[in-house]
C-alpha cells in the first residue's frame, strides 16, 4: 500500500525549522501600523494552497521509519523467524504482547531450531508503539510496518493473532510446517546462508 504513495516533499519541514532559529529579540510592542500588517498576513493566506490532506481519499506516506503495525517475518524458505523466546513480551512496557512457545517436532517444523512461537498476540489497545519489542527480538522476527489504520469497533478485533501478524508468503517460500533446508542447522539460517527453499521442503508458492 505504502509503495503507491509519493511524498509531497522529501523534506519533513526540517530545513524550515532550521531557518526559523533566529532569536526573537524585540520585546517592545509593535507599532500600530505594524500590528495592522497582521491583517495582510491573514488576507494573503486565503489565497495560498490549502495544507489539508483529504485523508480517507488521499493518503500521505508516513516517515520511512514510522512505528506502525507489527509484522512477524519469515526466512527465505518460508519458515518463521520467531522462536517463541518471549523476549518481546518481557520488553514490552505496556504488557501488550502475549507469547506461548512450543517445541518443533518431526513433521511439524515451523521455525529453524528447537522452538517456535505457538501463540503470538499483540493487543493494540495496549500497545504504545515504542518499538522496544523490536529491539529485544534476537532473530529479527518482529519488525514494524508503516501501517497505521488500526481502528476498530470491538476490543476483540484489536487483539491481533499470529495469523494477522505473520508476513505474507513471498514467491519461492513454502508455507510451514515443513522440514529445514537439507544439511543445515539453525545457525546457517541466522547467518543468512539459506536464501531459497529446497524442493525437498515442499512445493513453493510461485507468482
Amino acid at each position, binding site marked *: 500500500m505504502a509503495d503507491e504513495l509519493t511524498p509531497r516533499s522529501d523534506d519533513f519541514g526540517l530545513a524550515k525549522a532550521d531557518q526559523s532559529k533566529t532569536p526573537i529579540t524585540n520585546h517592545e510592542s509593535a507599532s500600530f501600523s505594524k500590528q495592522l500588517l497582521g*491583517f495582510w*498576513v491573514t488576507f494573503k493566506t486565503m489565497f495560498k494552497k490549502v495544507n*489539508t490532506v483529504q485523508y480517507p481519499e488521499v493518503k500521505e506516506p508516513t516517515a520511512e521509519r514510522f512505528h506502525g503495525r507489527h509484522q512477524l517475518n519469515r526466512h527465505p524458505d518460508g519458515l518463521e523467524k520467531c522462536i517463541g523466546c518471549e523476549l518481546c513480551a518481557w520488553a514490552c512496557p505496556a504488557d501488550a504482547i502475549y507469547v506461548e512457545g512450543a517445541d518443533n517436532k518431526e513433521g511439524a517444523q515451523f521455525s529453524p531450531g528447537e522452538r517456535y512461537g505457538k501463540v503470538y498476540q499483540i493487543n493494540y489497545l495496549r500497545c504504545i508503539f515504542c518499538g522496544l519489542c523490536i529491539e529485544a527480538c534476537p532473530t529479527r522476527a518482529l519488525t514494524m510496518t508503516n501501517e497505521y489504520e488500526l481502528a476498530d469497533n470491538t476490543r476483540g478485533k484489536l487483539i491481533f493473532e499470529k495469523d494477522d501478524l505473520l508476513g505474507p508468503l513471498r514467491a519461492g517460500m513454502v508455507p510451514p510446517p515443513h522440514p529445514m533446508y537439507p544439511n543445515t542447522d539453525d545457525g546457517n539460517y541466522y547467518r543468512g546462508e539459506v536464501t531459497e527453499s529446497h524442493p525437498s521442503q515442499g512445493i513453493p508458492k510461485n507468482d
Partner: protein
Amino acid sequence: MSNAELIGQDPGWVIALKGLFIFAACVFLTIMSVWAERRIVARMQQRSGPNRVGKFGLLQALVDGVKLALKEDLIPKAADRVIFVLAPIISTTACFMAFAVIPLTGEVNFFGHQTVMQLTDISVGVLYVLAIASVGVYGIVLAGWSSGSTYPLLGGLRSSAQVISYEVAMGLSLVAVFIYAGSMSTSEIVAAQDKWWYAVILFPSFIIYTISMVGETNRAPFDLAEAEGELVGGFHTEYSSLKFALFFLSEYVNIIAVSALATTLFLGGYHALPGLGFTEQWLGGWFTLAWFFVKVLGFFFVFVWLRGTLPRLRYDQFMKFGWKVLIPFSLAWIMVVSTLRVMSQQQAPRVIIIAFIFSIALIYIAITSLVDRQKVNHAKAAKVTNSEEPNFPVPAIPNSRSEQLNG
C-alpha cells in the same frame, strides 16, 4: 412619496409577507454565514474548512442545526426553569426585531403592490434598534443568572457589562449621523446619503461604530464573554440542544443586524456603490436588495477577518478601551461635528470654518504629542535594569536570604 407613506399604505397581507421574508432571510443568512465564516477562517489558516456535507460543505450548518435539534435538552437542577427557558427566546426575538426598521430595498413592485422592503418606518428607527439591542442583553444576563452555575454567571455578567459599555460608544457614534441627516428614521438617513456616504463625511464616527459593533456582538477580538480558557462557554455553558441553537442563531443574526445598521447609516443603505447608480435604473428596485446584501456581507467578512487575525483582548484592557478611548473620543467628535453643522447652517464665512478645523487639528496634534511624550517618559521609567534582586515588589520567599539575615 416617502418611504413612511408608502409603508403606511401596505395592506395586512403585504406586511405579513414582508415579516416572513425578513425572518426567512435572517435564518438563511445565519446558516450561510456560519458556513462562510468557517470556510473563510479556515482559508486564513491554510485549512480547507468544512467540505464534506453537500457541495463545498454548503449544508454543514444545516446539518449541525439538525444535530443540535436532535440532542438531549438538559435543564440543570439548580436552574431557574422559567427564566432558563425564557432567556434564549428573549435573545433571539430581540435580534430579529431589529430588522423591522432596516430598509432593504428602494421602491419595488411587491406582488403588484408598490412598496419598499421595510417592515415599518418609525421616526426614531435607529433609537428603536438601540433599544431592542439593549433588550437582547437581558437574554444574556438572565441566561447566565438562571443557569445556577458559576461560570455562566460570570460570563453573563461580563457580556452584559461589555454590551452595555459598547452601546454607549455606539450610541454616541450615531449622534453625528443624526446631526447630519436631521432625522432618526432609517429611510431618511439613507435618503440623506444620496451624494456622499456618511462613512466618508463622518469617518471617525464610522470607525467608532465598527469597533463598538464588534464589542456589542461579543465577537472576536472582543469575545470575552465566551473566553474558553477562562469561562468554559460563558453564559451559554449550561445550554444544550435547541436552546443553545437559539443563542447561536441570535449571535449570528445580531452580527447581520449590526452590519445592516452600519450599512444603512454609513454606507448608503440599499443604494448602489458610487458610480454604479445606473444599475438601479436599469435593473429595477429589486436589484437594490443585492446592493444591500453586498454591503452587509462586506461587513460580515470584516467580522470574520478580525476573528482570523486578532487575539482576544484582556478584560481590563477591553473596558479601558471602551470607556477611556472610545467614549471620550466620540464625545469630542460630536462637539466638533455639531459646531461645524451649526456654522454651515448659519452661513458662517468659509474662513471661520477653515480656522475652526485648523485649530481642532492643532489641539489634536498637541494632545497626541503630549501623550507620546508621556509614553516615552513611562518607557524610560520602566526600563529594566539587570540586577540580582527584582525591581518590583515580590512576596517574601520563605527561607530566602533576607529572612535568614533578619529572622
